[in-house]
């Protein structure tokens, strides 16, 4: 299992390579990407902050829960911190699996748990200010 908080652009290909195997028939990649607006208000960029050592521990915990439910998967979870420009990924979740169905379920499970449990914070930066945005 690959889990990491990184301060640079996420190397999506490297995350994909980490979960690939000749025994697998499916690889599913999810990218959370910085969007240029919040309810119509233009967003210039995002700033992410993490409690990195705890965040990596939480990612690993979520990954282990996932492997208990769907054994045999290969997982890669990477979240970025610092400035993320519009269109760049802030989060990549890669799941490699012998078969397709558990790939989707596991990827979705990891994403939803991350949204609730990961000690990471997001600030939207506008032309005229900035705001911390919590997941609802």
């Amino acid at each position: 299992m690959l889990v990491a908080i990184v301060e640079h652009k996420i190397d999506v290909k490297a995350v994909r390579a980490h979960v690939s195997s000749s025994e697998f028939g499916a690889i599913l990649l999810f990218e959370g990407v910085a969007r240029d607006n919040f309810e119509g208000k233009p967003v210039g960029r995002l700033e992410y902050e993490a409690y990195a050592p705890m965040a990596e521990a939480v990612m690993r915990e979520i990954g282990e829960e996932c492997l208990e439910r769907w054994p045999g998967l290969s997982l890669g979870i990477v979240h970025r911190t610092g400035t993320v420009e519009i269109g760049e990924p802030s989060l990549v979740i890669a799941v490699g699996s012998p078969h397709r169905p558990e790939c989707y379920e596991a990827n979705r499970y990891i994403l939803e748990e991350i949204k609730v449990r990961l000690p990471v914070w997001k600030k939207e930066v506008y032309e005229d200010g900035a705001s911390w945005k919590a997941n609802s």
Partner: protein
Amino acid sequence: MLSAFMLSVTVRYFARLRELRGLASEEVAIDQKTTADDLYLTLFPDQGTDRLRVGYAINKSMVPGNTELRAGDEIAFIPPVGGG
């Protein structure tokens, strides 16, 4: 000066709380039997109505607000998260 009856903990701040405090972390001397809730209210007396939305992690595990701090603990105040 740390008296014999006090203990020292590391406090970490993130996001809005880091900006309010103007610091990412600091060492704080507290009385014995101080809970996570007590410490939060001492450090952020004006944020009381918000405290139900702030969680506590001691040594990187989430804990309830009535958890007592021990010497050398690292406590982080966890405002509502926004990862993804």
